């Protein structure tokens, strides 16, 4: 019985393909043997610092093989990793670190300065380069003893997501949920060691979870695509061809870009065999474009909020879809149950819209250091009055069609998906209120134009550039509004709340930004 994800590595790639290339980053490539040695060196350094087990250790590194070494080092020390965004604005990073309360942060000298400016003291830092040296420098038996203390319901990692109060929520994922998802993916989607993975997502996202454990369990090589490729789709396609990448798990945004510019006719990445995507709706027209250019590739739509280990539903695109037909999110992954609950909290009939709720070991353990927010999102299954059983209410509205496939309709709150990122509009509003001249603000999202607009009350003329500059201290790039409208007063509905719907419909005269 497998109880922790390190067994994938120990019994997988490390046992069978020790000297194969595991990870290729911008600097060089690393074998599985090297990754294991460095990770265990790192674990020994963590243990030396006197940490216990099941504690969060933050990782403040740009996407690189070093991040993987740090994450595995943390796991080998019996703790859980929290990968942070090195480009996070200072205030957001400060709030994240405060929420995490981690006694140790793994970083490199180049990034230690940023942490120092936030008041992180030197003795909290561990430099990853101290672990990445040729010789083994750890006591294997001692590390194994620590690992033995971990059970499958212990935390594996913490992933941060946007929160309406301005403090990101730290979602705690378990070993069990991840093992269940990975085992399902290995068998249902036929993932084997012959694949070369082209990784494009940041390592503080859950797409990384699939990429990493796929690599470690099956011995598939993980190639980290340079960040610049995301800005230049043609370069991205050239990179995929150059490295003979066969497997990708991407956010649709970039793939839609490639389709819109008809780049596959000019640079067909013929090596691609498996194309997974998640994070937002992939417009069927763009998907059809990809399928026409790569007819023998397997296309899989995955769906799941961060509160679920990677994903909880999937749809293998196995039939022709019309350009204007919506792409299903499909069926539950194995050992995960999907409930669609209507307004009366009863199971929805076929074609009846309800909230997608998830049941099973794939659920996150909760939000780190946040019992109230946890209790709001993870609730007793209303269909089970007999014993405690939690479900996660996703807030996504869905229905089941005649084929039994789950179809997504929209949201029941103010969360949006923009460029693959999950954003709580409340967090943008919270940041806007930190700008002195802004009295009140409402963020609205135009899904068609993929635009975040900020409507704000202010007595002064404020330029868009000036507001963006101020907001950038609190919000990551993808959350910055691009359209700004000044009003004397935001419209209110009869119960005094800001009338978002009126604003979203464009029923308000603006004074100009």
């Amino acid at each position, binding site marked *: 019985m497998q109880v922790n994800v390190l067994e994938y590595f120990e019994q997988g790639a490390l046992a069978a393909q020790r000297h194969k290339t595991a990870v290729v980053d911008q600097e060089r490539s690393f074998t599985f043997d090297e990754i294991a040695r460095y990770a265990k060196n790192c674990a020994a350094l963590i243990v030396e610092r006197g940490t216990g087990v099941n504690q969060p250790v933050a990782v403040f590194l740009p996407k690189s093989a070093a991040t993987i070494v740090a994450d595995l080092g943390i796991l080998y020390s019996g703790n859980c990793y929290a990968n942070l965004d090195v480009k996070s604005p200072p205030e957001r990073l400060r709030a994240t670190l405060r929420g995490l309360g981690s006694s140790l942060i793994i970083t490199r000298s180049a990034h230690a300065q940023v942490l120092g400016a936030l008041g992180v003291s030197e003795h909290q830092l561990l430099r990853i380069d101290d672990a990445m040296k040729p010789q083994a420098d750890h006591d294997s038996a001692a590390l194994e003893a620590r690992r033995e203390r971990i059970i499958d319901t212990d935390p594996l990692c913490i992933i941060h997501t946007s929160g309406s109060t301005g403090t990101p929520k730290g979602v705690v994922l378990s070993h069990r949920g991840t093992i269940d998802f990975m085992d399902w993916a290995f068998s249902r989607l036929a993932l084997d060691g012959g694949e070369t993975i082209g990784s494009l997502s940041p390592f503080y996202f859950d797409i990384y979870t699939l990429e990493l454990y796929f690599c470690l369990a099956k011995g598939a090589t993980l190639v980290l695509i340079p960040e610049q490729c995301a800005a*230049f789709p043609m370069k991205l396609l050239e990179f995929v061809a150059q490295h003979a990448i066969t497997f990708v798990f991407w956010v649709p945004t970039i793939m839609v870009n490639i389709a819109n*510019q008809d780049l596959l006719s000019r640079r067909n990445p013929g090596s691609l065999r498996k194309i997974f995507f998640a994070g937002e709706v992939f417009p069927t027209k763009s998907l059809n474009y990809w399928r026409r250019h790569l007819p023998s590739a397997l296309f899989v739509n995955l769906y799941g909020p961060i509160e679920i280990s990677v994903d909880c539903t999937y749809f293998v695109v196995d039939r022709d879809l019309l350009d204007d037909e919506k792409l299903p999110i499909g069926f539950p992954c194995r050992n995960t149950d999907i409930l669609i609950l209507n307004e009366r909290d009863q199971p929805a009939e076929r074609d009846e819209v309800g909230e997608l709720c998830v049941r099973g070991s794939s659920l996150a353990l909760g939000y780190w250091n946040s019992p109230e927010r946890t209790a709001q999102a993870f609730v007793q299954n209303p269909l089970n009055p007999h014993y405690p059983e939690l479900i996660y209410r996703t807030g996504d509205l869905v229905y089941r069609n005649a084929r039994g496939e789950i179809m997504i309709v929209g949201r029941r709150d103010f969360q949006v998906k923009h460029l693959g990122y999950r954003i709580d509009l409340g967090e943008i509003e919270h940041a806007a209120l930190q700008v002195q001249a802004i009295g009140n603000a409402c963020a609205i999202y135009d899904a068609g134009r993929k635009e975040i607009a900020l409507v704000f009350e202010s007595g002064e003329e404020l330029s868009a550039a000036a507001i*963006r500059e101020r907001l950038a201290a609190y919000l990551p790039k993808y959350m910055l509004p691009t359209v700004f409208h000044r009003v004397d007063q935001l419209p209110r509905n009869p119960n005094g709340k800001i009338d978002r719907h009126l604003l979203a419909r464009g029923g308000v005269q603006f004074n100009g930004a």
Partner: protein
Amino acid sequence: MARELSRQALRGLLREIRPESDFEASRDFLSDGMLDSFDMVALVAALDEACGISIDGADILPEHFQNLEAIAGLLRRYGVRP
């Protein structure tokens, strides 16, 4: 739409996208980390709109967006006068 974009107007477009960066001082926006994938999407859309052109996806390459001269050079190929 006027097929003309002055150097000042180009700087203005860039400033809207990245108010905190000094585009005049940089010789290489990309290695200086001034333009990422979000900015590129916004910049291409802004240039298309301001100049009434449609920049071909195959022209969205690092060498055409390295600095103000490179962008002006790309625009010239689309018949946009500086």
